[in-house]
């Protein structure tokens, strides 16, 4: 019998179709037949240890676990027979004898699988009169609260670690009734996907710490949402009570995030309620910022826009703004006579703009990444930058795929890298050129003799039936991004694999479609001559800058240069949070709603538009960003800015993009001279996982995790010795005109001659780009 052939089984008198290799529970689940369970989860291996799913199977002397019983042709199953019910009742009784009567004080109450199954399948009286077991709790970090006495030892959380997170942290130590789920040694869990065990835990043993004791599940209303931090567009359920977003959980989407979300997506909502939310419009008068009402502020903003000469206006839009916001901002700027609009705030190299793809995207569907046989990561710490995409790559690796990387740091991955080329940033082009040379592809004039590693990568890509070359965030920030991209494109084409981009925010595709770039209009039509790109806007200072959803000192490629340019000009800032820099330099501040508070659309990196509604009330006088832009459009006298609903905006821009399909083909690169300047010390920058935007930076619980940046600058043992620096020593870094102090952490993942110092962190405001020569000395 082949895998494709189906046969029939009978369950509770119902005929059901089944395939060889399926477990009974998969068939009954698909048919909507209720079989109780705790340890079974469709995305985890079968454990069959809870014994809740015991059902009667004809001719079997004992009740059998549906999760571990393979279907057989003609099988007859009874899920509610006396034998099945007795078995289920028995399991339920055993689970409850040591389970504490915590329901009144347990957060899981009302959404507890144990409660639900006990109601449906358990007995009604307890006969246990011995002493109940008590388990001491461990503090496993700022995200997950533990009450391990409630644990029913289903081991879902344990299996999750090894099978999904790729990191075994929670385990089952001890034996028999002394079996304890825990870390054994108390520490904060490190996986960026750790919060998923909160969903997995069927009882209140593992619950969400940030939202502990704040609301009962039945008080919450559930709404659909889309994650606002990376380009995956992970689907969310937003749980709201009285207009306040109380917590975030995954919404199942097999094509994007399956049943998981990253911790960043789960806990960033805390940032919505930080003390420094911008709640009222503010105007600078006589050098001092004061609150104003909307009318006054909008009039001031409109006046500033009208007064400025079109080409002297520049707009820096967050790559995580909604499609509607990008579109309205683009329309506004262009109508005012400016093409100086860009969302590529962290990009390090714009030479290749003329060769840009029509609509850069992932190159494949997200789900296809699980089936790739070879993946080359170029300048990507995929694990922390796009955790759910990394999950797909990991799935492919477990299935035998080869994953390779060319990176400026030996980033920690939760799977084996077949080839890991780690080099100083200025050498990345040479390494990638090595792979190109191995494939006989144009190396853009870069001298490269392929070594065994290059050949290994080339061969793996070539022999893969399906694969990808993925340019990550570090590649985008690199001063030779255009070269890396051109080389990657050639390599992908020669090897017969796809080329992919990961995006820097949640809506890079949307930004491109809307035309939030200096050289393309809505729908991808070329603009000639192009306006100024994000870097040029700061190199050639303008008179008026409009920023949207951006903390300029954190969210641009060169903070020091930004400060010089924006500080000297008029600054109209529309955003959700205030920052010290904005409060000091902005002339007009307009409070815009943040994620979950506004309706809008993100187009994820596979080109899929996902719309959402605002479900939480924005604080104070905050308004949705798209509305602010619409009103500004009205006030400066533009036509066609009469939208009543954001959906009208969305429909308009999507219609304008009807002929624009995701397409990664790039044109020829004219300027091929490598711009990376090697220095005695090179900086490796990058944005830490919980520093990507204003919201995540203010998510208090995330900032307490091991992944949160803690003020450190990393360099390897040899480098530290050369600079006479010990662990935790104070070190001063100078880049351009600015300098700042940090604390040393010795990390041999950093190559020689490099310091790993992130951008978008306190201290980096005074410095320059993510990559480039720096001066380093003991402080």
């Amino acid at each position, binding site marked *: 019998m082949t895998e494709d052939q189906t046969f029939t089984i009978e369950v509770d008198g119902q005929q059901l179709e089944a395939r060889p290799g399926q477990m009974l529970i998969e068939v009954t689940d698909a048919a909507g037949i209720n079989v109780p369970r705790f340890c079974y989860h469709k995305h985890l*291996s079968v454990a069959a240890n809870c014994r809740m799913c015991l059902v009667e199977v004809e001719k079997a002397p004992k009740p059998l676990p549906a999760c571990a019983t393979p279907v057989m042709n003609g099988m007859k199953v009874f899920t509610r027979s006396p034998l099945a019910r007795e078995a289920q009742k028995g399991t339920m009784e055993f689970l409850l004898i040591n389970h504490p009567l915590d329901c009144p004080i347990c957060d899981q109450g009302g959404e507890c699988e144990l409660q639900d199954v006990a109601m449906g399948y358990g007995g009604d009286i307890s006969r246990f009169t011995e002493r109940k077991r008590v388990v001491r709790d461990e503090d496993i970090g700022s995200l997950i609260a533990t009450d391990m006495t409630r644990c029913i030892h289903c081991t879902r959380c344990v299996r999750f*670690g090894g099978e999904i997170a*790729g990191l075994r*942290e929670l385990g089952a130590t001890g*034996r028999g009734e002394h079996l304890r789920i825990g870390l*054994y040694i108390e520490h904060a869990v490190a996986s960026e996907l750790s919060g998923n065990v909160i969903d997995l835990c069927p009882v209140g043993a593992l619950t969400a710490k940030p939202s502990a004791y704040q609301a009962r599940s039945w008080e919450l209303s559930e709404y659909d949402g889309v994650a606002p931090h990376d380009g995956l567009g992970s689907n969310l359920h937003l749980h709201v009570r009285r207009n306040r977003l109380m917590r975030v959980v995954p919404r199942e989407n097999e094509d994007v995030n399956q049943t998981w979300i990253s911790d960043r997506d789960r806990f960033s909502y805390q940032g919505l309620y930080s003390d420094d939310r911008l709640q009222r419009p503010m105007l600078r008068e006589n050098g001092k910022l004061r609150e104003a009402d909307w009318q006054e502020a909008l009039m001031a903003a409109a006046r500033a826009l009208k007064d400025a000469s079109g080409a002297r206006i520049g707009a820096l839009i967050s790559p995580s703004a909604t499609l509607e916001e990008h579109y309205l901002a683009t329309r506004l700027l262009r109508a005012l006579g400016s093409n100086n609009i860009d969302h590529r705030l962290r990009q390090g190299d714009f030479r290749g703009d003329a060769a840009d793809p029509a609509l850069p995207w992932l190159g494949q569907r997200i789900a296809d990444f699980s089936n790739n046989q070879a993946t080359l990561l170029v300048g990507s710490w995929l694990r922390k930058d796009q955790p759910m995409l990394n999950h797909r790559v990991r799935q492919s690796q477990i299935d035998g795929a080869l994953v390779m990387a060319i990176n400026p740091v030996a980033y920690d991955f*939760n799977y084996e890298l077949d080839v890991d080329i780690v080099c100083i940033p200025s050498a990345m082009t040479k390494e990638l050129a090595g792979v190109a040379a191995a494939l006989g592809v144009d190396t853009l004039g870069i001298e490269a003799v392929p070594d065994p590693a290059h050949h290994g990568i080339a061969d793996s890509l070539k022999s893969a039936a399906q694969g990808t070359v993925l340019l990550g965030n570090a590649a985008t920030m690199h001063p030779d991004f255009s070269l890396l991209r051109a080389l990657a494109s050639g390599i992908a084409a020669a090897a017969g694999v796809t080329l992919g981009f990961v995006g820097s925010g949640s809506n890079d595709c949307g930004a491109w479609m809307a035309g939030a770039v200096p050289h393309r209009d809505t729908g991808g039509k070329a603009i000639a001559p192009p306006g100024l790109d994000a870097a040029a806007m700061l190199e050639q200072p303008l008179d008026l800058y409009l920023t949207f959803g951006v903390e300029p000192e954190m969210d641009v490629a060169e903070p020091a240069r930004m400060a010089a340019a924006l500080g000297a000009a008029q600054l109209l800032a529309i955003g959700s949070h205030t920052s010290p820099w904005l409060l000091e330099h902005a002339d007009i501040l307009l409070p815009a709603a943040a994620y979950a508070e506004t309706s809008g659309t993100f187009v994820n990196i596979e080109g899929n538009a996902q719309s959402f509604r605002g479900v939480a009330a924005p604080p104070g006088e905050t308004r949705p960003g798209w509305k602010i832009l619409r009103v500004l459009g009205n006030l400066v006298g533009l036509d066609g800015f009469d939208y009543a609903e954001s959906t009208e905006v969305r429909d308009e821009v999507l219609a304008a993009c009807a002929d624009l399909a995701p397409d990664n083909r790039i044109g020829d690169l004219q300027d091929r001279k490598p711009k990376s300047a090697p220095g005695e010390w090179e900086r490796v920058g990058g944005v830490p996982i919980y520093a990507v935007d204003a919201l995540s930076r203010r998510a208090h619980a995330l900032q307490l995790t091991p992944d949160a940046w803690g003020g450190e600058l990393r360099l390897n043992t040899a480098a530290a010795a050369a600079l006479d620096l010990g662990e935790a020593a104070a070190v001063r870094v100078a880049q351009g005109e600015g300098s700042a102090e940090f604390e040393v952490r010795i990390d041999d993942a950093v190559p020689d001659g490099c310091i790993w110092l992130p951008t978008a962190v306190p201290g980096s405001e005074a410095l320059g780009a993510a990559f480039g020569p720096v001066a380093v000395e003991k402080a």
Partner: protein
Amino acid sequence: MSMRSQPMVRVEKCEHKEALFTPEVRAEIDAWVAKYPERWQQSACMPALTIVQDMNGGHLTRELMDQVADYLDMPPISVYEVATFYSMYEHRPVGRHKICLCTNVSCMINGSDGILEHLSNRLGIGFGQVTSDGKFSLKEVECLAACGGAPMMQIGHNYYENLTPELVDQILDGLE
């Protein structure tokens, strides 16, 4: 259903294995590793813990377990799971001579209670305790597969069967 036969988790390979334990211990562990297929050095976890425990005078510490994890490229929690599952691993100091007394059925009905009483009186300790000079500790164990010689005990590796209080005294007197 997923049943993987290789370890699914990537572990940071330890770069300083030569600094762990002693050359003799490493050689012993290596001999165990050699019995298993490539990539399954995890199978040597139990022998490694036994060897390391013996090296440390009869009990394991967290540091030693972490070192075993390093040496065998295992996640530490995987080693903790093994070290806490099996009865012969000790996590607190034991006596120089660990006396394991069987109290299961055959031994019980042949007078293990009386042997326990005698041992407790002589040594001044009960199950789970160590004499103040660190010489003896007493542990209650399950069937040691010497039922024909009940009641019996194991001290260190050695089995002592057909015990009487007098024989117990003789045995203990002969231990340094």
